[in-house]
Each structure stands twice: as C-alpha cells, then as structure tokens.
C-alpha cells in the first residue's frame, strides 16, 4: 500500500475514480509517509493534517456525487510564500512567523475548486531569496537523494517533498530559477510558466516583474494537470495574461520530428560539471535520433544575466518588502521607543541576512544619482537578453540548456559566498529576465547518485510545446521511476 505514495498523480486519480481507494485513505497514507520521513527531509514549515482530512472527506463526497476531476482528492502542498486562508503563511521569515493568511491566493482558490487536498506549507529560502533553502529562518530542508546535500532553492521544500513522496505535486515559485533549479537538484519536473500565465494574486511578492507560480511534480503529465488548473487570466492581477489556457494534459502526445532545438553555445563551457554536460549532450543526441534538429544558437548577453537580475529584482524587492514595517501585521518590536526604533528593530530582527543584503542592493540601485547607472542600465540589458532569445527563436523552436551548472551541493558549501551561490542560477535566470516559459526535467544522475536537470525554454505562452517535448523525452527514459531511499 505504501507504494502508492510514489505513483504519479494521474494514476492515483484513476484509482480514486475507480473507487479502489478513497481520498481519505490516500491522505491518511500520505500523512503516515510524511510522518515517517519528515524528520530527515524537513520540507514542511506547517502541516495541516486535520484540514487535509477534511478536504479529503469533502473530495470523497464530491466524487460520490458524480464529480470527476483529475485533482479531486489529490494531496498536494504549497510553498510558504503563497497565501492559504486561515493557515500560517510565513515566507520562511521571522517577520511573518505568526501571520495567518486572511485570504486565499487565486491559485489556491482554483485548486480548491478542483478538489485538491492541502497538506500544508513548504519550506523555502526566506522571501524566496536563495538557491539552497538554507536562507529559511526556520532551518534548512535536506535533499531526499542525499541528506547532506541541499535540495536547491528557493522552492527547496517543494522539490524535496515531491521527491520524497510526501505529496503528489507542489506549488513553487520561480523568480530567478527557484522552481527549476530545485527541481533539478531533487530529480523532479518543475515548470516556470510565461510571465503573466499564472495569477500572482496572493503570492508574497519578491520581484514582481519576475515572480511566477508554477507546478512541481514527479512527471510532466502531472505538472500539466496542475498548470491547466492554476493558469489563466485573473481580474485581481493586472499583469495576468488574457491568452486562453489549453488543456495541456490532453495535448502531451505530439510528434517531435521536424522540431528545431537550439543549444546556446554559452551553456556547456567552463563551470559546468562534466556529468551535467554529458547528460545534456546525451539528451540532445536522443532528440536528434527522434528527428529533431539541434542547431547552435547564441545568447551573447547571458553573461550579464546575473548582474542584471540582481539589480532589477532587488530594486523591486526593496520596495515590495517595505510593507513589513510592524504597523499592521507580522512582527513588531520596539514600539515603546517610538516609530523609528520600531521600524528599525522590527526589520533588523525580522529579516535574515540575505533578505537584508537584497533590500540594501535594491535600495542602492534605485537611489538618486545611481538610478541611471544601475537600475535603468539593467533594464536595458534585460531587453537585450529578451532580444537574444527572440533571435534564438528565429532559428529554433525551443532552447535547451542545463538547468544548473552542477548537481546539488553540500549544505554550507556556498553560504559564506553569496556570489558563488548566485551562480547556481546562471542558466535559469535568463528565462525570468525574458518572461519566457521554461521547464526542468530529470535527465540522469551523477556518479554520486544525484539527479541532473535538463532545461527547456520556449517562446512566450508555449508551455504546451515544452510539456509535450518533455513528456516525449520522459516516456523514453527511466529517470522518473527511480526514487530516493529514505
């Protein structure tokens, strides 16, 4: 019976429809598995077993009433930067340690309507700032494949929980690689949708012009099932796109023959782990064997992607995080000594070092006298990165890159060197700068048994194509059937 925790969401959904298991039994099983594994993985910040069982009973009732929906009764979990009404939502920060969300994010509302069962809230880097989940104020999450390694970040809790069989799917958020890089580190599939594809209403903002919520699961098809529920125009988010949402899960079977895949020549050079390079090349050879042509493309401005991101994203963050001032919600310290002390002490004690570093960077980039040299110039480079991709898409239908230059690194390996940590996102950040859809899926393991991620980047709103290509690759490779032994 415990094997059921490892099965794909789509299979389990059929079991539920067939009545071979109830949502309550399934949820109980998952909760038992979380219980057995959580002390080692530590992916959850808040577990809500009672609420989950209540959701499950409701799902069983709906199914008994004839309702059929792939997510009805499926246990999932949510990165703790997404608001879930009545449940503590912390952004992995001391400043929101006791913050009870007063409303549901749009994605949560949509998933509730689809009948999903919510297990709880997943760990991440504080305010989604980081690449290892070590910036969580509540302690790190451990990589299920090797507990001495990080799960990646910032959606490390989401990736680890999915990889550890603690949920069938999870929501992550991706501002500069935060879905794809942990998905790669934990050997699962993660999708960063096009900017505007998924509503950000109820997502605790880090960098508003980059942030996107996306699905993380063990198979491409499972990601498709989630994405088609959460995507779509939301009247509460003025930046959400009006494009109609395809039924991604029904359009996964597409021929590969004739497709053109671009390989940016900047992606397999120095700093990329040899096994990662080999795994990506091997995947490309498989694509060629399927009648896909691989063309060399260039992303000449890729080397500016990280500095550009760390100016624009931090500028937005410095403004987005101003609301954590102790006045209306969250932590408040030092009020007895006046307003300035209250502001200072609340934020000094409430925010961790990486968050403070980014607030300072962003404040500096926007300051009078520096704005043109930093923020404005970074916006121009952002445009150049976008044009690089446009040029690449003239020659190729999608671009393939490694998701991360290395597999999961040991805990503590990069915490002393922020720049080294930032480089983990060198291949993922460009898609955020350009607002493009991108996906990471497993493409092998290194010698230490750590998963390697393959990244596909598509044209705006070409999520369907990315999912179909990834699905075809996944069908021919055994990676998804391997699980960490916990």
């Amino acid at each position, binding site marked *: 019976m415990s094997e059921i925790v490892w099965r794909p969401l789509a299979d389990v959904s059929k079991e539920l429809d067939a009545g071979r298991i109830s949502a309550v039994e399934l949820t109980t099983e998952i909760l038992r598995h979380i219980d057995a594994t959580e002390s080692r993985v530590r992916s959850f910040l808040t577990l809500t077993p009672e609420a989950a069982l209540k959701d499950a009973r409701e799902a069983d009732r709906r199914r008994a009433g004839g309702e059929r929906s792939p997510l009805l009764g499926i246990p999932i979990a949510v990165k703790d930067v*997404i*608001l879930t009404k009545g449940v503590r*939502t912390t*952004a992995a920060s001391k400043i*929101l340690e006791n*913050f009870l*969300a*007063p*409303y549901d*994010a749009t994605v949560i509302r949509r998933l509730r309507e689809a009948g999903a069962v919510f297990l709880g809230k997943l760990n991440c880097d504080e305010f989604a700032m980081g690449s290892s989940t070590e910036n969580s104020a509540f302690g790190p999450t451990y990589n299920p494949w090797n507990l001495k390694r990080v799960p990646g970040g910032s959606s490390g809790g989401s990736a680890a929980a999915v990889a550890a069989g603690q949920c069938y799917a999870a929501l992550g958020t991706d501002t500069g690689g935060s879905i794809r890089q942990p998905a790669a580190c934990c050997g699962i599939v993660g999708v960063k949708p096009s900017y505007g594809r998924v509503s*950000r*209403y*109820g*997502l*605790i*903002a880090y*960098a*508003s*012009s980059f942030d996107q919520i996306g699905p993380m699961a063990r198979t491409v098809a499972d990601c498709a099932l989630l994405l088609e529920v959460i995507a779509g125009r939301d*009247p*509460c*988010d*003025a*930046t959400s796109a009006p494009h109609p949402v395809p039924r991604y899960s029904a359009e996964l079977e597409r021929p590969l023959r004739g497709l053109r895949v671009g390989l940016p020549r900047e992606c397999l050079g120095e700093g990329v782990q040899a096994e990662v390079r080999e795994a990506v090349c091997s995947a490309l050879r498989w694509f060629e064997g399927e009648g896909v042509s691989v063309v060399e493309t260039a992303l000449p401005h890729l080397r500016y992607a990280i500095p550009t991101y760390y100016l624009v994203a931090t*500028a*937005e963050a*410095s*403004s987005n*995080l*101003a*609301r954590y*001032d102790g*006045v*209306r*919600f969250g932590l408040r310290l030092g009020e007895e000594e006046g*307003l300035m002390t209250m*502001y200072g002490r609340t934020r000094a004690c409430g925010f961790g070092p990486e968050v403070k570093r980014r607030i300072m960077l962003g*404040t500096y980039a*926007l*300051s*009078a006298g520096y*704005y043109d040299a930093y*923020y404005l110039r970074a916006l121009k480079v952002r445009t150049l990165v976008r044009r690089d991709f446009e040029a690449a898409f003239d020659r190729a239908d999608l671009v393939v890159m490694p998701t991360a230059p290395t597999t999961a690194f040991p805990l503590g390996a990069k915490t002393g060197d922020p720049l080294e940590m930032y480089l983990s996102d060198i291949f993922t950040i460009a898609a955020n700068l350009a607002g493009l859809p991108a996906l990471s899926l497993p493409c092998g393991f290194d010698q230490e048994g750590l998963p390697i991620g393959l990244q596909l980047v598509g044209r705006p709103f070409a999520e369907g194509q990315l999912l179909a290509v990834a699905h075809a690759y996944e069908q021919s490779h055994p990676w998804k059937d391997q699980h960490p032994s916990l």
Partner: protein
Amino acid sequence: MERPASVFVNNMDYEAVIGLEVHAELLTASKMFCGCSAEFGAPPNQNTCPVCLGLPGALPVLNRRAVEFAVRLGLATQCEVRLFSRWARKNYFYPDLPKGYQISQYELPICVGGWVTLSGEEGEKRIRLARIHMEEDTGKNIHDPLNDVSLVDFNRSGVPLLEIVSEPDMRTPQEAGAYLRKLRQILQYLEVCDGNMEEGSFRCDANVSVRPLGSEKFGTKVEIKNMNSFRHVERAIEFEVGRQLRALEEGEPIVQETRLWDPEREVTRSMRTKEYAHDYRYFPEPDLPPVRLDREWVEAIRQSLPELPDARCLRFVREYNLPTYDAEVLTSRRDLADYFEAVVACGVTPKVASNWVMGDILRAVRERGLDRDLRIQQWPVEAESLAQLIQLIERGTISGKIAKTVFERMIATNQPPEEIVQREGLVQITDENALLSEIHQVLADNPDKVAEFRSGKEKLFGFFVGQVMKRTGGKANPQKLNELLRAALQSG
C-alpha cells in the same frame, strides 16, 4: 490684482513667485486600485481590503473611472492628454502608507501642459499647468495624546487623487487664491471632485520664492504645507513672502525647506530642510501595465464635457442680458446655474429670476444649511414653484411684499404658491372702492395728521400707507394704494 505685485527692498523691487500643487480627491464610487468604497466618513477601517491595507500578496487593479476623471480635467484645462502613461512607485516609510510606497505617476504623467484662465480687473491671465497625474491617497494617522497611542484609519488609503501642478506663474497671494477657486470650480463643474478643503478632498501645497523684479532667475523656493482653507493659503503665502523679504533685507540666506503653516499664530515654521529631504526612489510600478488610452475614448470624453464656467458666464451675460456680477455669482457653481436656468425656462424674466435666486434662494439655502460638500443637497423650493411665485407677482395677484411671506410658507409647507395664496386669502386688493373705503376710514381716524400733511409735512404719507396696509393685512396693491391715497389727501 488688489495689491501691488512688487515690494521695495534694498533699493530693489521684488516680486513673489508662487506655484501650487493641488491634490483633488476624485468622486469615484470605489478606490483607485480595489473595489472598496471611496466614500468619506465611514467608521474607521471599514472601507478596507487586502489591497488597500497593503497585505502580503495583494495586487492593484486600475479603476478606469479614475482615469476618465483625469482625462476630463485634462481636456477642460487644455492639457495634452497622453495616450500612453505609466505608473510609478514612490517609496517612503510612514504608518499611514500601508505598502511602504505610494502608487503614483512620475516620468510619464497622464496630462501635461494646459492652463487655467483667471479674469481680473486688468484682464485675463493664464496660469500654466506643468502636469496632472493620478495617484492613490494615504490613510490617516490619528494621535491620541490622552492614551499616548497612535492609530491609523485606512478608509482613505487608495482613494483616487489627481495631483495638479501649476507652473510658478502666480505673483500674489490673491492670485494664488483666485487660481485655486477657479480650479475647484472647474473640478466641481466636471463632477470630478467636491472641492471640500475642510474635509481634505481638495488640498494645496505652495512653492514660494521671491526675486528682483525683472529677473529671470528664480529665488530659493520654500514649500508650504498644512493650509486647510482658501484663506489659509492666502495668509500663509502672504506671511511667507514677507518672511523671505525680511530675510533679504537683513542679509540672511533663504533656505530651501518645507515649512508648515500654523493657523493659530499665522506663521510658517520650518519642518525639514533639503538635507533631510526624502529620496523617493521612484521606479516603474511592476504590478500595473502602462495606461494606454484609445483616441476615440478620449474624444468621446471631450464630447461629453459639460459647459465650463467661463463659457457659461459669458453666455449668461449674452443670452440673458445679466450684469456680469450676476452671471459670475450664478455660474460660480454648476448646480446654482442649473437652477437659475430652470427658473428662466418656466418663462420668468431672467433678471427677476436672478434677483430671487441670488437673494432669497441663496439666503434660504444658507440659513437652513441645505448645502453640504459645496453642493446644494436640497433646494428650499423647486425651480418651477419659484417661477410660479414670481409669475403671481408679475400678474399682480400678490404684491412683492406678500410674495416674501408666501415664499416662507412654501418652504415650510412645500405647497404650490397659488394654493397658499388662495387658502390664506393673500390675494392683493386692487378693487378701488374697497381701497377707497379703507383710505377714508384712515383719514377720518387721523384728522390732525391729515392737517399736518396738508400743511406740508409730506413725510406723513408713509404713515397713511402703513395704516391702510395694517387694516388690509398688507394685501393692498401698493401702486393702487399710493395713487388713491395721494388723490384723497390732495383733494381734501
């Protein structure tokens, strides 16, 4: 205008240079970026939601109506209405600013250029507008010194505002006051803002400097805040100009700073100097797409603009032959001008209608407090009823004097004038025999007064009129009475 625009200091003529920044709260039903009511006066924090409280995860959604209002004002003041404008964040910490930034417009405001025309005795003067931009209002801090706590009311947080920035084109406090009144009048005509300075829906900061007359260079400017009425604006600017001139006289430097008007002591005091000035770190608002306007939409708004006060005033002079003064008073408010025109439309002579509206009607409105938010909430009598009353006088059914009594009854009972006149027997006595019999009785009762009158004390005529009026309950037709009384006194 009324005062000399220049002052003599240190052997030089100086002039004041004044620019105003006005914040006008818009009369939209809901707030700028959320669905909460924008109405004034609800219990604290009742009109709030995650968006206007700046809760984590909340996002702004633009109220199109607020954009329409901005376009209306832009078109009415001859601005260039930009088809593409952008939102920006203005960052600063303050407890009444829930997000830690205000959503405003910075580099690309919705309206630029334009002007407001002032008319004075020396002719017309244009006050140019630098820009009009849209932004959201903040909440309100409430300090409770008794319990030593500060509270914040977020009802106002997110209410749409227009910031209207003039060029430094004004030279006297009176000119600044005239500009403000004109701007408010236009806003009220457009039904965009109620213009209430006391409630804070129409707020003004002033930039004031002085310079030698004829100089092209500006002096160091000082910003004045906390002026809550037109009078305060004029007094504060007057004080500030005087203060700066005295400083020049004494050879002291003028510091670029923000000063607060203290209405109790009638002085401005330093609030913060430029060294402490905020760096607002403006940058484009990533949560909102740029505002793109349709040219046809803007044209449709232009077509729907009401007749504006200047045009209406000119038309009143031309079409109704009114004195300029009457036309100015009547067109000072759109509702008042509408009322006047409704009375005239019933067939009343315009000047007669004007006298009644400017006199009795406005007095009744004021006495009964029927105007609030600078709008007349309720007219003391309907325009049609007033017209009927005036027509009763014009037909000679009642006297002008009786009409005042009928008017009071109309207000009290809300009944048509004819009914009141009939029921209370107020119809004028014009019948000569009836009047003559009253006259003879009065003359018979006062033989000594009659003798005095006949020996030349003509002032007594009024006494006899009064006696007859007393006997007839004021209903005697005054003209007829005069005529018959004079004949009776002379014929004896």
